[in-house]
């Protein structure tokens, strides 16, 4: 693998999971032996930060001496250079597929799509779930069928590589000397590992998410929400760590010469009181339950209308990072079990 990464680095900027003082996080790497493909579960922040950064300069403006205004689009920077991100787990790949749908359509978000087009995704199937993983229940792991250029599977002494795109194929074609044709047994071995992972996740005994939107719609006014939002600290960590959350705010910053400045976009969270505030001072989601619900309803109800599927990929990050340890699975279980119209099917 190091040889392969080394060769990639000759032509591309390489992004990969790197062990840090605090855990594992996706970072730009300059030495390929820093890449840690054995990391468990997931990184704290998902790879979305490389496609939709927490704070992003959109453009700069400047008045020249004659009073004309010029705009410099930072998109030009964004479109320079090709990148490869390696070690993306299936749940995170799924999240990129969700974001793809969100950021395209009637309009296209050029900052996101440019980065997507500039970046090859080398996925990595999951060999061992972490405490809060539930990808299997939302159909986003431990393996995946699309959304990658290459997909690696760690078989102990070697990696099985599945090609997912033309670009991915090119990446291997020029490096055939380090690849061998996969044998049937290897493929079977991968299936075996994946099945094991799936079984382990299934042990959690979660309810079926297929009809969760209908249940949620019915229970919009339930007491559950008040109970949970008394615990919820509205700190916004769940939004920022979620691989599919993408709300943002835009703000302008002038330079001290007052003749130039920049526009930024910055991650925002529907848990913050200011999120829905308008100039008159009105706040449309003033009470905490309504904000607590917004995230869950967007993911599990509104999203179906918006992109045709729920937008939770089962990575479990929000559970792990919540200071109050609110577990979205508990919330959903409680909604389903407490619901009257749907019989509690706990498989």
């Amino acid at each position, binding site marked *: 693998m190091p040889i392969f990464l080394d060769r990639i680095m000759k032509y591309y900027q390489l992004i990969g999971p790197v062990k*840090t003082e*605090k*855990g594992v*996080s996706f970072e730009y790497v300059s030495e390929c032996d820093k890449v840690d493909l054995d990391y468990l579960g997931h*990184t*704290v*922040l998902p790879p979305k930060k490389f496609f939709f950064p*927490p704070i992003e300069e959109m453009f700069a403006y400047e008045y020249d001496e004659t009073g004309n205004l010029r705009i410099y689009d930072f998109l030009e920077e964004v479109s320079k250079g090709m990148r490869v991100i390696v070690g993306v787990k299936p749940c995170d790949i799924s999240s990129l597929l969700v974001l793809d749908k969100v950021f395209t359509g009637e309009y296209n978000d050029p900052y996101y799509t440019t980065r997507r087009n500039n970046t090859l995704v080398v996925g990595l199937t999951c060999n061992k779930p972490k405490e809060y993983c539930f990808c299997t229940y939302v159909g986003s792991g431990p393996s995946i069928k699309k959304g990658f250029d290459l997909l690696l599977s760690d078989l102990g002494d070697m990696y099985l590589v599945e090609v997912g795109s033309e670009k991915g194929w090119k990446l291997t074609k020029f490096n055939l000397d380090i690849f061998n044709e996969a044998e049937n047994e290897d493929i079977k071995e991968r299936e075996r590992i994946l099945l094991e992972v799936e079984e382990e996740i299934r042990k959690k005994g979660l309810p079926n998410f297929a009809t969760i939107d209908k249940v949620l719609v019915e229970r919009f006014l339930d007491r559950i929400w008040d109970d949970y939002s*008394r*615990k*919820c*600290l*509205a*700190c*916004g*960590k769940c*939004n*920022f*760590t979620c691989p599919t959350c993408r709300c943002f705010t835009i*703000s302008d*910053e*002038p*330079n*001290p*010469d*007052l003749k130039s400045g920049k526009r930024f976009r910055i*991650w925002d*969270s529907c848990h*913050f*009181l*200011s999120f829905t505030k308008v100039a008159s001072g009105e706040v449309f989601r003033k009470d*905490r339950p309504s904000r607590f619900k917004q995230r869950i309803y967007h993911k599990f109800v509104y999203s179906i209308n918006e992109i045709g599927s729920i937008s939770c990929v089962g990575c479990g990050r929000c559970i792990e*990072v919540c*200071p*109050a*340890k609110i577990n979205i699975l508990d919330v959903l279980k409680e909604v389903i079990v407490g619901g009257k119209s749907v019989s509690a099917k706990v498989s």
Partner: protein
Amino acid sequence: MNKIRIGIFSLSSCEGCIVQILNLEDILLNLLKKFEIESRILGTQNRTESYDIAFVEGSVMSIDEEMELKKIRRMSKFLVALGECACHGGNFLVRDFNVGEILERFPGSETWYSNPIDRYVRIEYYIPGCPIDKEEFFTVFKSLLLEKFPEQISNTVCSECILKENNCLIDKGIACLGSITRGGCKAICPTFNRECYGCRGLSDDANVEGLLQTFKEKNIEPPTHLTLITRREGRKT
């Protein structure tokens, strides 16, 4: 065009916030050249009658200071409270004393109070923090030049903490107040493995009861200053 006139004033304080302004080394010279900046620490005071923007650091602890503050207000178009002393009467740590008890023990002491400056005068903008974050100061500064008031930061320290990919200290049994504290400091304390002790004051919709509940479930003893923060901001619990 006349140079924009800036005043930087200090009432009772540690002057840490002004030092933070001096710590803007890279741009300090440009600022000094571009604007007329008056401050005692720079030895450039008493040249003007009026200020476009006045920054006041420190809390009011005497009648003299109250008079001085009111004078500054009269002379200034925009008045900005700089740091916790000015915004809230002092870092709660530095202000925690039981007034009644002190009066009892030391009768006749008139200078025991330490009040936020908005108790005496109208304030256009608050830059919280003990000390202020110098970048935040610069952002506010730039905006005020355009007579623009940047939105008061309404996110939490936690939301900045996660951007640093820190592991949560609460999980380690440490009483971190990041979830109820107004952000803007880039979660500097948790990033250096120290609990946030709420120096920037409560966030917009701080769920103090919720945090206490979390502490209880995890057997974490809430820090004594939590009550001081909530009392200071007139909230219950």
